[in-house]
């Protein structure tokens, strides 16, 4: 932390069993075999001048600045492309080399503007550094052919089309680093070098950046040694003066970033090479879309109101907290202890989530705590716990580099989990095979240098039938890894399962009519997964958000166990988790039936350990889930809720039911950074803090606990954990923590899988993957290595049960929902950034065949109606969908996608069935009634009145 620059060894230090020893400038140095002379020199602190090399990329050898002399070799080889060898004797600085380097630099500078003093990269430019390093004192070439003078016919103007960075071709030294970064690191192949020789120029495929394939990940900007590609915030604000390592608050990949600061102003976010989840890469959200954190819409003062139709009144913290506390106590006195509850946030830190569930269990005296994971990955927890014994994915992200066959099911990593997708694409370019099971032709199916061997384009809602068919092939064709199963799994359960899937009715031929996937394709995919080497499964919400979500998770676990694909690198069953801390919020006991560490509330020993520390008696009965709370609210028995950092009106299914529930409550307390949709129905608003304003930890999809570090003071005066403590105090439940590290200490003391976790350990290691305890003091990258956490792996019988949501004459199409790269979840953050330029509204994707039947053309406003409600969206004609299936996203509140989703849900966890809704689509000329009402209420329920009490 604090280091302004991360070390750049020029070329990657290789991983190799063998080391070689060479002599550089008279000093002996040992490095792993395959490491370049340049990197070897760097390990002993010798910086050989370089321009085209950087350790995020493979060496390229084009700039000729890194020349060295090697005894016994002729000429002056480039140190970046020369591998170290045993006994080599290298000289990095000789008069001959100095002259050559000066000559090279002179040529570069002769075609480079000399406006260093006013350049955005002044102080952070490798060209400038190299000119200094080689001692360049004069440039002997006169004005000639150049790319610098605006009058020159080679001059190209700046490209400012991307909202986050600028491309200034006049400063380009054509080192190719950006092109290689886009290929090797990001895997998008958006950039090329156009033209030859002196004419060559970087080009985003012949158009401007915004109009190109570029996904704005920023890799090229980091790679660029000059000011040619530079962040707009740096142009605007200048160079940062300090850096703090923290964690992205967007998705479950959990990328580490260096927040580069001037005082308490954030200048830019740069992915950290030391971050184990991302290893120096990022996506547009974490890298650039952080402007929401200081957006003018932030609410920074507490507010209250008596009725939701009243304007909000700004008040002091004391008044707001006092109001919330007295209302909650009144409600409990009047309607009973169970009449209140709360929701923890997957966007807040582990420590904050822990405190909210503690407040509810210990302070409210019930277990009415739930979290938004309910609507995304609750089936993952249930399914993996039942089969393997832990509610989490089995691998670290790095493991994918060892996979031979990757099965991606119901996930769209290039949009949802971009940095993981880049790792995956890298592995696929090296030759691993890909199978995609998805109703939609996602980008991975066919992209630059990546192609799925099989795309199983199934009908939404038939996942389990497809998995059973794959299992059928594996069992009946004798592809089961019998030794593994015998050693590692419960045999009785295996045999019942094998008998079950072997039944003819599960064969690919028999299920083809249901899934819509050709039998031959299923058979080929099954054989590939079972016999292609290390088989790894990655899945997303397309698996969990179904009425059989939990069944499907177990079906995938069965498949992995049957083929021996659990317990080492390169294999596994891995959820791609949605929100940044959805794993952590589940770990921290956010579910009504579980205390932290996934231990049931009825488990006496566990409960007693919490009771002893907290000094209260805890209820041994499971509390209400979010849908139960809403039902009870409508029924008049649930009256108050404390929601930290969630927006259930927008994210939960059947919006009108959610609203009815909230409207029936007497005290709704919202803690958030924005006046979100749910806050329209609230009586008390407590300002939340962004991830930049607090200390804490997030846990990503690989169970990795990463530090979040405070870089600026909370705009509202208190960080979220402090607000919960203050609320608890107002309720008469004092909590004593001076810093989030003390909360983590309590978590570690009470939770066996976190026993070894402390801020000191995180400081030392950077991050750690739970379980982390005496048995695994450094954490656990890969789970179930010698045995399953539950002992023997448990096969479960997974009968396909079709959802009750059926298409019919009134609703003949299936609507499925998803997400896109530039927007995030309910969009509250990304909509408040320039990311919206990539996605201004939610649209309906419809197949040309369905469109034509309905007389719909591209851009038409269409009504999408289901049994729950209807909305209007603009149509996009797309062959990514199969006929009969339409698709939309839910990033914009005003489109109201969840007005039409139904209340069907997963049988085990009530995770809503977002992925299947029967709808009808027709042309329309007006927004739906719900949308019109939304527009009116958007104003009416958000009014903020003048502050009556000016004293804060």
């Amino acid at each position: 932390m604090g280091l302004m620059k991360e070390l750049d060894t020029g070329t990657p230090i290789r991983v190799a069993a063998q080391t070689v020893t060479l002599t550089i400038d008279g000093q002996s140095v040992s490095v792993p075999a395959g490491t370049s002379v340049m990197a070897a020199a760097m390990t002993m602190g010798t910086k050989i001048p370089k321009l085209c090399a950087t350790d995020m990329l493979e060496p390229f050898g084009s700039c000729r600045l890194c020349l060295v002399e090697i005894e016994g070799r002729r000429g002056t080889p480039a140190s970046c492309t020369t591998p170290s060898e045993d006994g080599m004797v290298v000289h990095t600085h000789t008069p001959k080399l100095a002259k050559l380097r000066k000559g090279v630099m002179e040529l570069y500078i002769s075609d480079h503007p000399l406006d260093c003093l006013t350049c955005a990269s002044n102080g952070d430019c490798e060209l400038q550094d190299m000119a200094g390093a080689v001692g360049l004192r004069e440039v002997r070439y006169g004005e000639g052919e150049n790319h610098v003078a605006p009058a020159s016919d080679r001059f190209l103007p700046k490209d400012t089309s991307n909202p986050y960075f600028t491309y200034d071709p006049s400063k380009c030294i054509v080192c190719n680093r950006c092109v290689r970064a886009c290929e090797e690191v990001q895997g998008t192949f958006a950039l090329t070098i156009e033209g030859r020789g002196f004419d060559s120029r970087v080009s985003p495929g012949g158009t401007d950046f915004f109009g190109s394939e570029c996904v704005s990940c920023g890799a090229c900007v980091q790679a660029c040694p000059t000011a040619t590609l530079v962040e707009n915030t740096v142009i605007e604000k200048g160079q940062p003066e300090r850096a703090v390592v923290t964690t992205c608050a967007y998705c479950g990949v959990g990328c580490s970033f260096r927040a580069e600061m001037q005082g308490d102003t954030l200048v830019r976010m740069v992915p950290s090479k030391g971050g184990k989840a991302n290893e120096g890469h990022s996506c547009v959200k974490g890298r650039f879309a952080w402007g929401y954190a200081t957006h003018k819409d932030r609410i920074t003062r507490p507010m209250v109101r008596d009725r939701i139709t009243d304007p909000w009144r700004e008040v002091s913290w004391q008044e707001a907290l006092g109001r919330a506390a007295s209302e909650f106590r009144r409600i409990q006195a009047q309607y009973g202890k169970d009449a209140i509850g709360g929701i923890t946030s997957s966007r807040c830190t582990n420590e904050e989530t822990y405190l909210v569930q503690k407040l509810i269990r210990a302070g409210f005296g019930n277990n009415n705590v739930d979290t938004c994971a309910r609507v995304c990955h609750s089936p993952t927890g249930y399914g993996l716990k039942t089969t393997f014994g832990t509610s989490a994915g089995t691998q670290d992200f790095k493991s994918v580099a060892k996979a031979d066959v990757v099965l991606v099911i119901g996930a769209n990593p290039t949009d949802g989990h971009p940095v993981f997708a880049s790792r995956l694409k890298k592995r696929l370019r090296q030759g691993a095979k890909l199978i995609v099971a998805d109703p939609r032709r996602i980008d991975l199916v066919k992209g630059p240098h990546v192609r799925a061997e099989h795309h199983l384009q199934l009908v939404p809602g038939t996942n389990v039938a497809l998995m059973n068919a794959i299992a059928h092939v594996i069992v009946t064709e004798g592809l089961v890894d019998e030794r593994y199963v015998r050693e590692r799994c419960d045999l009785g359960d295996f045999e019942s399962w094998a008998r079950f899937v072997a039944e003819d009715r599960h064969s690919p031929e028999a299920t083809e009519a249901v899934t819509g996937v050709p039998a031959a394709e299923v058979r080929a995919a099954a054989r590939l997964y079972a016999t292609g080497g290390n088989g790894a499964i990655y899945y997303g919400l397309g698996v969990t958000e179904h009425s059989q979500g939990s069944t499907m998770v177990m079906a995938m676990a069965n498949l992995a166990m049957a083929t021996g694909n659990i317990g080492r690198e390169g294999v596994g069953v891995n959820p791609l988790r949605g929100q940044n801390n959805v794993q952590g919020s589940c770990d921290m006991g956010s579910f009504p039936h579980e205390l932290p560490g996934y231990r049931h509330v009825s488990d006496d020993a566990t409960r007693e350990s919490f009771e002893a520390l907290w000094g209260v008696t805890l209820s041994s009965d499971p509390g209400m889930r979010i849908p139960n709370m809403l039902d009870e609210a409508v029924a008049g028995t649930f009256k108050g809720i404390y929601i930290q950092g969630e927006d259930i009106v927008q994210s939960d299914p059947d919006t009108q039911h959610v609203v009815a529930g909230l409207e029936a409550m007497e005290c709704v307390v919202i803690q958030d950074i924005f006046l979100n949709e749910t806050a329209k129905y609230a009586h008390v608003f407590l300002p939340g803090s962004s991830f930049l304003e607090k200390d804490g930890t997030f846990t990503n999809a690989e169970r990795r606990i990463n530090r979040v570090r405070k870089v600026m003071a909370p705009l509202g005066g208190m960080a979220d954990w402090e607000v919960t403590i203050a609320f608890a105090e107002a309720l008469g439940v004092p909590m004593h923590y001076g810093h989030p590290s003390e909360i983590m200490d309590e978590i570690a003391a009470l939770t066996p899988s976190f026993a070894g976790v402390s801020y000191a350990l995180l400081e030392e290691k950077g991050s750690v993957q739970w379980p982390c305890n005496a048995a695994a003091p450094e954490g656990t990258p890969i789970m179930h290595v010698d045995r399953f956490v539950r002992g023997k792996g448990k096969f479960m019988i997974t009968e396909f049960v079709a959802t009750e949501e059926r298409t019919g004459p009134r609703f003949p199409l299936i609507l499925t929902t998803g997400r896109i790269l530039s927007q995030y979840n309910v969009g509250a953050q990304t909509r408040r950034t320039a990311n919206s330029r990539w996605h201004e509204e939610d649209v309906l994707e419809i197949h040309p065949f369905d469109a034509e039947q309905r007389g719909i053309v591209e851009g038409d406003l269409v009504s999408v109606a289901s049994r729950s409600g209807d909305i209007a969206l603009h149509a996009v004609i797309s062959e990514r969908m199969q006929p009969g299936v339409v698709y939309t996203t839910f990033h914009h509140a005003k489109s109201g996608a969840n007005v039409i989703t139904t209340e069907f849900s997963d049988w085990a966890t009530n995770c809503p069935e977002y992925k299947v809704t029967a709808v009808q689509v027709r042309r329309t000329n007006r927004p739906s009634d719900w949308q019109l009402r939304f527009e009116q209420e958007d104003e009416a329920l958000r009014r903020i009145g003048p502050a009556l009490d000016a004293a804060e």
Partner: protein
Amino acid sequence: MDTAKLARMGNQIAAFFRSYPEEQAVASIRDHVRQFWTPKMRETARAACERGEGGFDPLVVRALVERERV
């Protein structure tokens, strides 16, 4: 919470465990309900089952009603 909704939830759980031998299915349903449903939900459902109302799957009825006897 209305009985129809509880019946739908219960019957969905039964649909999963139906693949198992009946005794095992009944025990698994009972265990599932005990783990995840609030006491009030269990009571409401059990009362409806005892009255023979709500359209509960016979497996759910057994799981909820017999529990009282053991």
